[in-house]
């Protein structure tokens, strides 16, 4: 199992955190919150958004729960998604082996994001500060050292595995 990149999107379609590892098996390599990844982030968001709307339409009759996407796979890689009720998306790009990363993404949300971003008084409540930064036009990203450090340490085990 290899992890290629990790993304967080907020409810305004903005990418608020991205981390890409460019060398396979090297957890220290790669970029964090890179400007170059802005376009990729938009494509990724669009892909997941469209497929989410398909899965939302194609729900089994009689089921009450929403039909959430678990993973999307191409011939080369797999995209794992975890969407929270607050509109946050946690996205993980890995190799295409059908492994379930739900627990990992849930852990990142519950134990790392909530702890260092949501419960942090100094972190903004909403990363889009005004109207012009909504609808995917946002520029603010997560720069909290504790969050980044903990995320890095947590994902390291899976990158080198």
């Amino acid at each position, binding site marked *: *199992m*290899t992890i*290629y*990149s990790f993304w967080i999107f907020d409810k305004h379609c903005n990418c608020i955190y991205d981390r*890409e*590892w*460019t*060398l*396979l098996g090297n957890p220290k390599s*790669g970029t964090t919150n890179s400007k170059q990844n802005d376009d*990729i982030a938009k*494509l*990724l968001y*669009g*892909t997941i958004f*469209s*497929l989410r*709307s*398909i*899965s939302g*339409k*194609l*729900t*089994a*009759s009689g*089921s009450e*729960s*929403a*039909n*959430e*996407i*678990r*993973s*999307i*796979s*191409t*011939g*080369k*890689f797999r*995209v794992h998604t975890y969407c929270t009720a607050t509109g946050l998306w946690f996205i993980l*790009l890995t190799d*295409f*082996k*059908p*492994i*379930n*990363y*739900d*627990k*990992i993404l849930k852990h990142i949300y519950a134990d790392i994001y909530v702890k260092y971003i949501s419960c942090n008084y100094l972190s903004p409540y909403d990363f889009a500060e005004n109207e012009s930064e909504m609808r995917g036009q946002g520029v603010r990203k997560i720069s909290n050292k504790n969050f980044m450090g903990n995320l890095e340490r947590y994902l390291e*085990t*899976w990158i080198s*595995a």
Partner: protein
Amino acid sequence: MAIETILIINKSGGLIYHRNFSESFASKLNSNDFLIIASTIHSVFAIASQVTPKALQLTQNKVDYTIPYIPMVGMESSANQNNRGNPEMKLGSYKGPDYFRESFVSWNKSGLRQLSTDQFTMYIYQTMTGLKFVALSSNVLSSHHTTANGTVDKTKSANLASQVADNFLRKIYCVYSDYVMKDPFYSMEMPIKSETFDKKVKEMVNNLL
């Protein structure tokens, strides 16, 4: 593996064939909704290759696209046929029931291949000419969990499901080539109205259950 719906999308994103085999997923949707779904799949398919991670672009690691042959997918087993005294089912108009007996290389190398959600799994098989065969299956990928040392139990079964789907959709493609492409009254890129094709697809889906 229960197939709920089969879609065929032509190379420009139009829906040319659509059949529901049960009412569970499609009951709320009309044919217009399916047209939208088909074109969405078509466009996402193209975008998916654009988001290939940099690590993969840098390293030219060889991915094996070979899909192993799985015997008699979607075909009635010969024992069953003998019992009921049916004539041997053929794949196309003249090919034997299990005409393809070797593994094959998937043409779908960077596009969307599989979409798994809480309630269904969608498999996409793309032909060399850009035609897409989409199967919606109601079985979901088992939710097994990875442990810290990376041992995984059910990777194999999930892999097998996608191999079966690829084998199955390739056979549908074979039936398509025989009953749709050889139909002199069929106009290219238009909705498929052939009853024989419809019947064959239905038979194959029923055999898969």
